[in-house]
């Protein structure tokens, strides 16, 4: 079954995006990307360590002919910082896509709605394809769509928490309203979480910690890929409504008594 998704005019075959942070080794990361068979992977921008010039970088490990890079603005606390990081990333010539993150505090790691909207407006004006990371706020999601973002990426639950799709109802509203793809990001701990996100109509999922910190990241990458496909199929197949009471699945007529 071909069931690709189009983001900013680009057709993506896989509806799973993987992050590349927090793996125990680069080898485990490569194995996970391969097993999950994703196309889009997020990366961060950091200062080069000039005291260790021979250190391999992530680009030594990721085959950019196979995987498309999505640089994020992780670490930025204001719209200005995010714009600066995005431009630096773009200047490397690998992509004009950016996963926009404006996160003012380092404890809860929740995105700033005001700073994110400001940055998105400026980035779109500057020619970026913007995929903003947001709280589960349908009004903000709509505003980001209106200023020209390519997707919205609401969080399922706190980053790295593995709690799954906690605020389910608000994500459903975001999906209902959106005319751009909705990517559920952050907090997906197991394939059941990703499958659930897809079942309610999300277009894609982004997972990092759930794969990177699993005991076996490659196997977990494959599991998430399968979970996303299962959830997508279920969305298309039309699930049964939830009912309060039981109804038998064997016929009662003709039963021996």
């Amino acid at each position, binding site marked *: 079954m071909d069931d690709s998704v189009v983001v900013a005019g680009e057709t993506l075959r896989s509806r799973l995006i993987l992050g590349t942070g927090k793996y125990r080794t680069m080898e485990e990361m490569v194995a996970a990307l391969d097993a999950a068979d994703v196309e889009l992977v997020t990366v961060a921008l950091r*200062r080069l360590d000039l005291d260790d010039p021979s250190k391999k970088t992530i680009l030594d490990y990721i085959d950019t002919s196979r995987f498309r890079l999505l640089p994020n603005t992780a670490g930025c606390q204001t719209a200005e910082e995010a714009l600066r990081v995005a431009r630096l990333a773009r200047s490397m010539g690998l992509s004009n896509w950016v996963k926009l993150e404006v996160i003012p505090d380092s404890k809860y790691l929740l995105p700033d709605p005001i700073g994110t909207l400001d940055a998105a407006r400026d980035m779109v004006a500057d020619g970026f394809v913007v995929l903003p*990371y947001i709280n589960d706020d349908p009004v903000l999601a709509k505003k980001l769509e209106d200023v020209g973002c390519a997707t919205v990426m609401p969080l399922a639950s706190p980053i790295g928490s593995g709690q799954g799709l906690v605020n389910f109802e608000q994500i459903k509203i975001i999906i209902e309203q959106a005319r751009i793809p909705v990517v559920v990001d952050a907090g997906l701990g197991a394939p059941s979480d990703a499958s659930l996100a897809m079942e309610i109509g999300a277009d894609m999922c982004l997972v990092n910690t759930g794969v990177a910190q699993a005991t076996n990241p490659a196997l977990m990458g494959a599991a998430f890929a399968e979970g996303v496909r299962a959830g997508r199929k279920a969305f298309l197949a039309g699930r049964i409504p939830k009912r309060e009471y039981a109804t038998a699945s064997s016929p009662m007529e003709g039963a021996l008594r």
Partner: protein
Amino acid sequence: MMQLTINGKPRELAPECCLLDFLEKQQVNPQLIAIEYNGDIVKREHFGEIVLHEGDRLEIVHMVGGGTQ
């Protein structure tokens, strides 16, 4: 010797050092980095035109593994 700030730290270089020479000496592959020179981003095709001076601020960044924040 001249004083610069590279990646937020003070650093001494021989005067009139060219950016590409500096990168080469540091064994840094220009294909894998991005550069901000005195607050302005420099496209890779212009790396060769930059000559470093006393007091310059240089940011050299590269991509690392990352997901969210």
